[in-house]
């Protein structure tokens, strides 16, 4: 029952996952690895719509995968780092900070929109439940 609320709930779960992923990427923007290893890989969220129910209306979104970004990263010259190799190079993660922050704002706005949708749907269902009360 209450399909509208369930569908918005899937949105809340998906956008929360996106925010978690972005927070991890941003936290690790300066995580350095030696050139012998892969760089820290940024994560992404792959989401897919949940198919329609018997009434032909879709049932929301679900996170199907968390693919990782480029393992090569950026080579940077940092000879003082304890992880530097013979030429003084280290691997930095391939994370674009402004893009991550932009995505964070998108994710937060989308989460808010879904939460608002839950409130609107709840008000609608309450109106339906009130029919005939106090007769």
């Amino acid at each position, binding site marked *: 029952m209450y399909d509208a609320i369930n569908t918005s709930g899937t949105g809340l779960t998906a956008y929360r996952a996106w925010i978690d992923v972005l927070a991890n990427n941003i936290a690790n923007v300066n995580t350095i690895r030696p050139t012998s290893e892969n760089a820290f890989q940024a994560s992404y969220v792959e989401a897919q719509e949940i198919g329609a129910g018997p009434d032909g209306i879709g049932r929301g979104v679900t996170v199907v995968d968390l693919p990782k970004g480029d393992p090569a990263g950026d080579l940077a010259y940092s000879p003082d780092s304890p992880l530097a190799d013979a030429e003084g190079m280290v691997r930095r993660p391939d994370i674009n900070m402004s893009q991550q922050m932009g995505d964070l704002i998108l994710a937060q706005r989308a989460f808010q929109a879904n939460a608002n949708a839950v409130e609107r749907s709840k008000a609608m269902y309450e109106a339906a439940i009130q029919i*005939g009360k106090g007769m």
Partner: protein
Amino acid sequence: MSIPIAPIGSIAPLAGLGGVSPTGYDASLGGSAAASNVMPVGTSGTGADFASALANGFDAVQAAQTDANQLSVQAATGQLVDPAQLTIATTKAQLMTQMASAIQSKAVTAFNTIMSMQA
């Protein structure tokens, strides 16, 4: 969306008295297939049709209650898609039951009044 509430249909005339007809009755008002929306029209004539009109009216009330019961069970098992269907059916059953009760007591009162008329 308006709640489809059944207007009172024609009441069969008792012998010698005129019946009451509704005006502007819209037969297309919605409602479940199970519940008849109309208190049925009795044929003109004797008091026996009054009894059958009452009996048919009670069938309609029974159907409305059954409809509401079925939707209640669907809601209890979490299978009801639209809660408004249940509250509308419950309201309809409640109104029809009250109306049937009121009509029955009025009919009994009228019958007793007529029976007590002495020549």
